[in-house]
């Protein structure tokens, strides 16, 4: 048991810091049961221990909604920075609708045209050379090297974690997020939430109760239009990967009414045509 746990830790450590950037970046909205702002509720419930969990979860859903619309497209650049200063860049075009995500690599040339589709817990990889989608395990690397499918194709925080409000100060709420099941790569998240914008400013990812795996820092709040005001940059570091750093840049996050057929195997070679 201990050995398996150590191996699990090791697997997580081996990934460069970029692993969970995308994970924290894809946070589409799930409409709240009412249209009201929830931060006041969270504030109120903070003094009411019995209702903390419920209100914290509502706050988490509001965070999801603030980060991205229910159906949207976006571009991402992932930059992996090694201790010697070498950099590796990847550019992705991503579409998302409900529990479905599709992403295609636009750069570098060695990855260009590779697309990944997620429908719930199902995941497929399409490689142009192979010419057909192959069902893959969600924890598998999508492109070889640094990226994990679950990281790139992650669903909502509120879909994968339950939240509890543990603390607050003048500028932040602090949420403790516990994984709903074993399918997520991090068992616990500690999230600092900007009280005004209701978006995360920092997340600490733990593989176990006290073992910090990664720290993610959001910055560069930008107005993407259509009421989408959110961070445009995410920096990731890991205390277990000294010297490695990863940056994700977001661009052109736009609400878009996407057809359901865009999230099918037959459409995987054409995801990039939706640009």
């Amino acid at each position, binding site marked *: 048991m201990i050995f*398996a746990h150590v*191996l*699990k830790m*090791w*697997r997580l450590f*081996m990934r*460069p810091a970029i692993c969970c950037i995308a994970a924290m970046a894809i946070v589409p909205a799930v409409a709240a049961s009412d249209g009201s702002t929830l931060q006041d509720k969270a504030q109120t419930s903070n003094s009411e221990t019995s209702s903390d969990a419920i209100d914290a979860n509502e706050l988490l859903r509001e965070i999801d909604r603030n980060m991205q619309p229910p159906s949207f497209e976006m*571009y991402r*650049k992932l*930059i992996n920075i*090694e201790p010697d200063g070498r950099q*590796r860049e990847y*550019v992705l*075009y991503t579409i998302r609708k409900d529990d479905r995500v599709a992403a295609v690599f*636009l*750069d*570098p*040339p*060695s990855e*260009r*045209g590779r697309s990944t589709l997620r*429908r*719930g*817990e*199902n*995941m497929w990889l399409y*490689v142009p*050379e*192979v*010419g*057909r989608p*192959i*069902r*893959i*395990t*969600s*924890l*598998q*690397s999508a492109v*070889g*090297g640094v990226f994990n499918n*679950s990281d790139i194709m992650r669903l909502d925080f509120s879909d994968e974690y339950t939240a509890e409000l543990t603390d607050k100060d003048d500028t932040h709420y602090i949420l403790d997020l516990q994984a709903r099941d*074993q*399918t997520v790569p991090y068992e616990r998240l500690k999230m600092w939430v900007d009280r005004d914008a209701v978006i995360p400013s920092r997340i600490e990812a733990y593989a176990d109760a006290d073992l910090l795996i990664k720290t993610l820092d959001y910055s560069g709040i930008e107005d993407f239009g259509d009421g989408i005001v959110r961070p445009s940059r995410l920096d990731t570091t890991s205390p277990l990967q000294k010297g490695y750093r990863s*940056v994700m*840049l977001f*661009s052109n996050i736009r609400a878009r009414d996407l*057809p*359901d*057929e*865009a*999230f*099918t*195997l*037959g*459409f995987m070679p*054409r995801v*990039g*045509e939706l*640009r």
Partner: protein
Amino acid sequence: MIRPCCLLLSALVLFASMVAADEFVFDIEQYERRTWEVGGHLEGTAEYLRANRKSAVYQLNFPDENKKAFERYQGNLEVSGLYRSEPFSLHSLLNVRYRDDIFETRSDIQFFQLYATGEPTLRTNVEVGKRALRWGTGYAFNPTAFLERPKDPVDPDLSREGFIIAGTEYIRSFSGPIQAFSLSGTILPVTGDINDDFGPENDINLAVRSYLLYRDTDIYFMVRHGDSRPTAFGTAFSRNLADNFEIHGEFAWFDNREIRVAPDADNVPVTRKADPFDLLAGLRYLSVAETTWIVEYYRNGAGYTGSEIRRMATLARENIIFPGLDRGTSRIGRSEFGAPQPMRDYLYVRAMHNEPFDRLYTRAGATLMINLQDGSASIIPEIVYTGFTNLELRGRIAILTGGRNTDFGERLNRWRTEIRARYFF
């Protein structure tokens, strides 16, 4: 005065560079859709082969040679092109190959694919031209690949030449137990000038494939009908049992399938009915230690029996003593006997580990293929490095084991080493 200015300037430059180092640029204009797109790769491969001079395949292919070992150099250029003119687009994949070893120096240039697509609606797609279709859920083997050229399980991801086809596909997505559906129809004509290597008889061959994503399981049904190849029915499935464990399988039935075997004592070509069923069962598993395992069992109904292989190997050796006595054997030997999997039962195991010894951008692993009938096998350890921008380096050693009259024991070489460099553009 000058010195402080220089120091100040140096400090400013240093500060500016430190700031700039953290200011990343993301100009998405260069990633927007364009009318033209061109990409591809250029690769070079160097191999050293230790020949198995007593093997049947060696003697069939090179009866006049007696080399203990030799080198082989290959170059390969693949250029993919795309031209868009809504709602149509033109796709191409040009392949240029060069090969040089002691037996031959050869170069080829051909379009692996050249086809036009149209999308009357988002749910419908029409394709006409030379197209490489890929059917099946298996990694190394695909019994339901009804419209394809043979795949080499040693390099299953390599591009392959397509056939000239006309086809259409209709796709739908649902929210119920059936989550997605597609239906595709393909016409593959065979004449003296078109697709003449698909089958011996000229005909208009038809193929239909349907797909369902039903309760998180991929399910395919396919049929092929025409005179060029036997009528065939197939089904395939794939499903994740856990987030790190996937299973898949394929089953194909062929009507009146025949295979050529070694000629009889009078050197008359002989054919016999083959087993009508092909089967594949496989899994993909990602271990906690970040190793991907692919395991597949393949039943090749059109494979040879052990006694047939023995007879062909014997005739091939006699061909050295009496060249020209049995040309039929040579023809058969080069096509069927020399195929990637000429016999009936194979076990394929591939393990690839990411970032061994903390080496970023490195993968290491091995591929094992065992002929379950005669116990012969090939094992191919390999290492891949992608640390240089747009460059992939791969090293392999292929070791073949097996005695006389066995599948891998009668191959061209006993072992070989290979270094491949592939540059993407």
